[in-house]
């Protein structure tokens, strides 16, 4: 056994070291030389405040009693930390921008800075945490007693001043007051405290690992030997396999631990409030799970050694100490004691700090600020009062914890209190998590959900525990509320036979979530709630929000300054206003009192007294608070706006693509037109050349005969002159036609549209062509009936069309030959021509029984000079190649169409469709 004095001295030295460390850190931070404190490693280690004495001693006890279930306590936070990208990052980002001071502040700020929510959450947190704090005291005294021997009692049963718990409590209170309430800084961070708990995290891991390694290699011979020992004892089966029906408890403890990693007030404090850089999360996300895994690795070895080599009946919660002691290694036992002490003190420090902030900001400050002392025009300085409140709260919390510890003595095993405390913290989870993802969650919903969850937690988890210990509610638990068996706390609605923890968590969380969701859907949020919910839910959207402009308030700078001075002290107030005035670009120290300044001041106040109190303080001096609907909608629509922007971009790029496609098409058309123009020019010159050449050569012959003296006969001369005249006429005709078609194409041609008889015009055209037909021995006929076919057209142009078509029909017919039918060309009515009034168009066909047009030329015959297919009839070369294009142009200009209806061995049919005169009249 170690001497009491020695252990006390070592413990006192250890605590003194903590004070020193915190003091040095604070000094260095003041000098701005504490880069190490602001490192991700220290941040991660500070998260390890999660591992309390409940881990240090209780995890081994839990493993010895319940087997592998203890792992869920460390796997749960692992899952949450691994999901930092989804949840923790968002919480940290929000807390940063909203200057959140605690979990109560966070939830209240989300639901419209509601004072009732922050007060309720604070109360719940205090009720859930006090037993947990007392548990730490119990662990310290129990470990102290184990170390110095049970000769004299130093626990809760002993004389007050002999009680180790008292001294631990007093030194912890001194520590937290010294380093947790030094001043009301610009932020709610406490570098001294963080440094101390980071250091404690290293100590507890090292000392736990030392005991674990001793169990593995000092007592046993490695893992193989250890598990062989465990396998030899069937009572130890739970240490390497799951018991029957472990599933529900496994899942529930996993859930509780995961939620506890965010919702326990102390975890929220270190993870979110004390976070100095969002990027530290990226390191903590894997490093903290690694810490948890390392500490878990040693639990089972210690438990196996404790169960197999220590005398039966020992307290498994103290195996960490009793294993080294029984092996005679008192040095190792002392290290283990220091590790347990560090685990306990770090928890007590952070928990009491977090709770004191919550109590002073959310319970005391609203009451004090309502009173005359702090609200009147001559109100006194509040910053000192706030610090005093915080210090008193710390004393109060620790006193409560100490009293609870004295009253309960050695009751429940460590683990069960821990899990019930976790379950109470988990009641914050629905309001917290739904709050940052579901914009529709309302203040009433959150309030009702919290109340429901907490009530059911008290009824199904706390009451049975108290009844088991024989303190209270025994009748209630045995018979149910009002004697109704169906309402028994441990078998609500007849759910008997469940594990009490699973039962309580199931009912409390489902009640919490259901009430939150249903009430939220039934109520509607106030404008300030809508504003806050939009800010919280969209916190990860990039870009800065113009929140400042959303709340329209007016206040005088003087009032704002005095308020700030009262709450934050003269020095801070001066700094805040001077800095803001500078940012506004003003020479004096008084900024203009615009809404952004009021919002800024409110945020500064919130960093000290919490969002709800800050809001009520500012509301008292600011007038005419209205939320600009436009600004609100703008913020709410921020997401939609982002979507709209990206859609607009998408549309623009689509439009660009379409335009590019159109441009490509136009370019291709232009190229084709260009080629067509070149073709046209070369054809025109070719067409012009042929008559020119013949005119020139015949005129040369005529001129040359004078010189040569070989006179031509007059008949020859006459023939040559005729050829020259014909060719000149052809040339003229060709030029006329080219001019004609270009006039028509450019729309310059003049038209004389009138009601004419198409049949009459066709007959005239046939008469005109009869000479050519007789020459080519082609039979011409008209079959249009006796009735006139009234169309709206220019008579001369229409005749030109028929003449052109008939001329083609004659020229391209096969020559008369034996064995072939007699060549014919005729004009007849098309199928639509039968009822000229109905379709608006009259159809006439110009047909022949010639050889037809080859497939590859059916389209090109309508292009200029495309006179391609073999001319068989008539005079070779007589066509200008413009007949069909001109005809088509004429018919189109008249509002009709000219097409090749069919062609083949039996001949070709050209269809001329013209607007009927009735249709014209109707227009």
């Amino acid at each position, binding site marked *: 056994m170690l001497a009491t004095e020695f252990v006390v001295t070592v413990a006192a030295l250890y605590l003194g070291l903590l004070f020193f460390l915190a003091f040095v850190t604070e000094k260095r931070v003041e000098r701005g030389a504490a880069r190490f404190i602001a490192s991700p490693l220290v941040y991660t280690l500070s998260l390890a405040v999660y591992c309390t004495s409940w881990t240090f001693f209780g995890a081994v006890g839990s493993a010895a009693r319940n087997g592998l279930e203890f792992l869920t306590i460390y796997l749960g936070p692992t899952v*949450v930390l691994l*999901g930092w990208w989804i949840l923790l990052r968002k919480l940290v980002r929000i807390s940063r921008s909203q200057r959140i001071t605690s979990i109560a502040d966070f939830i209240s700020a989300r639901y419209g800075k509601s004072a009732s929510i922050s007060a309720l959450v604070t109360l719940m947190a205090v009720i859930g945490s006090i037993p947990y704090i007392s548990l730490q005291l119990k662990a310290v005294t129990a470990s102290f007693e184990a170390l110095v021997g049970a000769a004299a009692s130093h626990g809760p049963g002993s004389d007050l001043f002999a009680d180790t718990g008292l001294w631990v409590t007093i030194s912890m209170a001194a520590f937290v007051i010294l380093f947790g309430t030094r001043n009301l800084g610009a932020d709610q961070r406490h570098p001294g405290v963080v440094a101390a708990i980071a250091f404690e995290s290293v100590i507890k891991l090292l000392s736990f690992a030392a005991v674990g390694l001793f169990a593995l290699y000092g007592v046993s011979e490695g893992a193989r030997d250890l*598990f062989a020992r465990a396998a030899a004892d069937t009572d130890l089966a739970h240490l390497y396999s799951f018991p029957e029906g472990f599933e529900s408890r496994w899942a529930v403890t996993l859930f509780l631990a995961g939620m506890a990693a965010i919702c326990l007030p102390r975890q929220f404090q270190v993870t979110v409030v004390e976070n100095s850089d969002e990027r530290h999360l990226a390191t903590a996300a894997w490093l903290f799970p690694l810490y948890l895994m390392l500490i878990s690795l040693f639990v089972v070895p210690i438990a196996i050694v404790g169960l197999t080599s220590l005398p039966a009946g020992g307290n498994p919660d103290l195996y960490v100490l009793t294993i080294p002691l029984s092996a005679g290694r008192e040095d190792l036992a002392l290290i283990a004691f220091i590790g347990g002490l560090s685990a306990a003190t770090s928890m007590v420090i952070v928990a009491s700090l977090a709770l004191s902030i919550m109590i002073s900001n959310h319970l005391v400050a609203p009451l004090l600020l309502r009173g005359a002392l702090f609200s009147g025009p001559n109100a006194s300085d509040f910053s000192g009062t706030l610090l005093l409140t915080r210090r008193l709260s710390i004393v109060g919390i620790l006193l409560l914890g100490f009293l609870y510890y004295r009253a309960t003595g050695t009751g429940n095993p460590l683990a069960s209190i821990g899990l019930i405390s976790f379950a109470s913290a988990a009641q914050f989870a629905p309001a917290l998590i739904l709050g940052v993802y579901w914009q529709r969650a309302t203040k009433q919903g959150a309030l009702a959900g919290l109340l429901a969850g907490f009530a059911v937690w008290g009824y199904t988890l706390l009451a049975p525990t108290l009844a088991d210990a024989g303190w209270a509610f025994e009748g209630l638990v045995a018979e149910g509320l009002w004697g109704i068996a169906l309402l028994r706390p441990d078998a609500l609605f007849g759910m008997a036979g469940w594990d009490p923890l699973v039962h309580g968590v199931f009912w409390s969380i489902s009640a919490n979530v259901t009430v939150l969701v249903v009430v939220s859907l039934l109520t509607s949020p106030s404008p300030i709630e809508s504003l806050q919910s939009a800010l919280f839910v969209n916190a990860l959207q*990039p870009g800065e929000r113009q929140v400042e402009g959303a709340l329209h308030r007016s206040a005088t700078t003087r009032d704002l300054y005095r308020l700030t001075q009262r709450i934050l002290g003269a020095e801070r107030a001066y700094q805040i206003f001077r800095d803001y005035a500078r940012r506004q670009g003003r020479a004096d120290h008084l900024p203009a009192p615009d809404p952004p300044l009021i919002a800024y001041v409110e945020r500064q106040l919130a960093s000290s007294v919490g969002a709800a109190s800050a809001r009520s303080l500012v509301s008292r001096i600011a007038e005419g608070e209205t939320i600009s609907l436009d600004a609100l909608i703008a913020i709410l629509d921020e997401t939609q706006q982002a979507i709209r922007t990206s859609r607009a971009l998408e549309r623009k790029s689509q439009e660009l693509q379409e335009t590019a496609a159109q441009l490509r098409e136009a370019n291709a058309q232009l190229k084709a037109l260009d080629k067509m123009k070149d073709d046209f020019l070369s054809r025109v010159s070719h067409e012009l050349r042929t008559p020119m050449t013949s005119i020139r050569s015949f005129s040369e012959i005529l001129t040359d005969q004078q010189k040569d003296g070989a006179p031509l006969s007059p008949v020859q001369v006459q023939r040559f002159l005729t050829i020259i005249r014909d060719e000149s006429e052809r040339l003229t005709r060709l030029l006329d036609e080219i001019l004609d078609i270009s006039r028509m194409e450019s729309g310059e041609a003049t038209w004389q549209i009138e009601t004419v008889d198409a049949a009459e015009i066709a007959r005239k055209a046939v008469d005109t062509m009869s000479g050519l037909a007789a020459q080519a021995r082609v039979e011409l006929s008209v079959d249009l009936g006796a009735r006139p076919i009234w169309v709206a057209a220019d008579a001369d142009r229409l005749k030109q069309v028929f003449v052109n078509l008939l001329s083609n029909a004659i020229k391209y017919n096969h020559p008369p030959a034996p064995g072939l039918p007699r060549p014919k060309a005729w004009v007849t009515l098309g199928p639509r021509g039968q009822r000229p009034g109905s379709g608006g168009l009259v159809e006439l066909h110009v047909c022949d029984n010639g050889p037809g047009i080859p497939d590859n030329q059916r389209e090109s015959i309508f292009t200029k000079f495309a006179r391609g297919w073999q001319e068989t009839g008539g005079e070779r070369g007589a066509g200008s190649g413009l007949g069909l294009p001109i005809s088509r142009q004429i018919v189109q200009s008249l509002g009709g169409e000219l097409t090749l209806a069919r062609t083949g061995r039996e001949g070709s049919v050209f269809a001329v469709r013209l607007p009927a005169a009735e249709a014209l009249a109707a227009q």
Partner: protein
Amino acid sequence: MVSRRPLDERLPDPEGRGGSEGGTRRPDSRRLRDMASLLPAALLVVILPPYISVFDQDSLLSGIPLLHLYIFGVWALAILVCGLLARRLLHQEMQGAAGQTEERTADGGRREPD
């Protein structure tokens, strides 16, 4: 998105890989973020029944129960994956932030949708 993509491709690859894939490689920010979001869910699935019950067997692997090996194995694996992802995400975040300021100064403070 539309405007950030070319920026991402311009920046050097943090791991020095992807050079061989050249311009066809999509910026993997989306993929990284999805992986970071799915990691906790994946871990949750494998440490809950029924998966975990599969490894609840009476067999030892070099003297250590299979269940212990399984739990600590997936735990370590998840930590490893998270560490790798976190490093790259952080890297990317910083580049993204740098790119954003660049963009903001370039086009007069226009926000880009994420």
